[in-house]
């Protein structure tokens, strides 16, 4: 009896860790729930009920003994697709019976402690390049490529910097977009850049909550109403922060 109880708790620990990593890395709600149920089922807990929201996971397992329930809180959310893919791979291996409970826990722990596969400068460079490319995609001229490149790169760098300084998302996004607006204004007023609108739109793209908006609507359609609304609110707040930052720039001239 005691053994069985301990094992159920171990299964729950593995499921919750997997769910936590996935949710923090930006996986869809249904994928998190599905993965947790699959892992639980392949370890022998056939009746499990995950309840996933963007800010916390509730998980209960039914068995012969009274139902056990655990709750974990999710505070930080980023987008880290590598981790989503790795947890997915581990969940496949668990389903195939390749891992014991301890091994699975150790592997998941390794993933949760691993850092980003790219360095900070690669991130900034990627943001800069994508800003320049978006400018061209939105029918900007090649002459504005360089201003958008610089503005987008510095804007993204300042987002990361401000986020480290004050861990409030709204503040860092507001400051970053304010800086982007000022830089674009500088480039246009010195004659290096041509179209202010295009430069700003291109450089703001790395900050735009595109993934959140789409995930929010998908969650709503899939019936995860609370997750959908929460993600929608998150996306709205980000969009508002960006808009407000740019708006302050416009009030300067």
């Amino acid at each position, binding site marked *: 009896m005691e053994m069985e109880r301990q094992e159920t708790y171990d299964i729950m620990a593995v499921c919750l860790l997997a769910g936590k990593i996935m949710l923090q890395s*930006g*996986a*869809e709600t249904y*994928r998190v729930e599905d993965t947790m149920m699959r892992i639980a089922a392949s370890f022998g807990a056939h009746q499990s009920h995950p309840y996933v929201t963007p800010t916390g996971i509730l998980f209960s397992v039914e068995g012969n003994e009274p139902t056990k329930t655990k709750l974990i809180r999710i505070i930080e959310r980023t*987008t*880290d*697709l*590598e*981790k*989503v*893919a790795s947890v*997915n*791979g581990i969940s*496949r291996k668990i389903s195939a019976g390749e891992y014991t409970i301890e091994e699975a826990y150790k592997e998941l722990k390794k993933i949760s402690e691993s850092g*980003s*596969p*790219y360095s900070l400068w*690669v*991130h900034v460079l*990627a*943001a800069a*390049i*994508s800003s320049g*490319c*978006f400018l*061209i*995609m*939105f029918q900007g001229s090649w002459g504005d490529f360089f201003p958008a490149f610089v503005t987008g790169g510095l804007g*993204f760098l300042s987002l990361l910097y401000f986020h480290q300084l004050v861990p409030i998302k709204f503040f860092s996004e507001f400051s970053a977009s304010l800086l982007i607006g000022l830089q674009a204004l500088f480039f246009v007023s010195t004659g290096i850049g041509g179209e202010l*609108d295009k430069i*700003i*739109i291109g450089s*703001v*793209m*790395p900050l*735009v909550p*595109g*993934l959140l*908006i*789409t995930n929010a*609507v*998908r969650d709503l*359609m*899939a019936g995860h109403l609370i997750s959908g609304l929460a993600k929608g609110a998150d996306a709205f707040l980000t*969009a508002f922060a*960006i*808009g*407000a930052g*740019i*708006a302050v720039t*416009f*009030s300067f001239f």
Partner: protein
Amino acid sequence: MTIIEQLITSFIASAAFVIIFNGPKRSLFHCGLVGMVGWIFYFLLEANGVDMVLATVIAAFSIAIASQYFAKKYKTPVIIYSVAGIIPLVPGGIAYNAMRNFVQNDYNLAINLAAKAFMISGSIAIGLVFSEVINQIIRKSKLKTIVNKSQ
């Protein structure tokens, strides 16, 4: 010429976005391809006078098909590919213009643009969900034929 320019920039922009989102290195190239397919569909349709919302639905649908193909082939979650594809379609420009008009006290135009941005983000989701539904229907109908044969 414009099309080649658009193909190259959309490929690079999508792949760069996957780096920002910490995507796996081995899928960067495929993500770029997915983004390119989606954007070229959208770009050509819009250039030929198709409504923006419809063009977005079709582009999102093609993105979802390409992502599901890669996801199945390389056994990775669909979201990695579909995120890369969606990013160029996100109505960042319209949302920006809406915000700008709000600030300049032109509320009528701003509400118009905001509604449009909402419609487009909704149609991205519809395109994705629609392709998922079709995928499930195909899978289920295949299962049925297998069951029928074995009986």
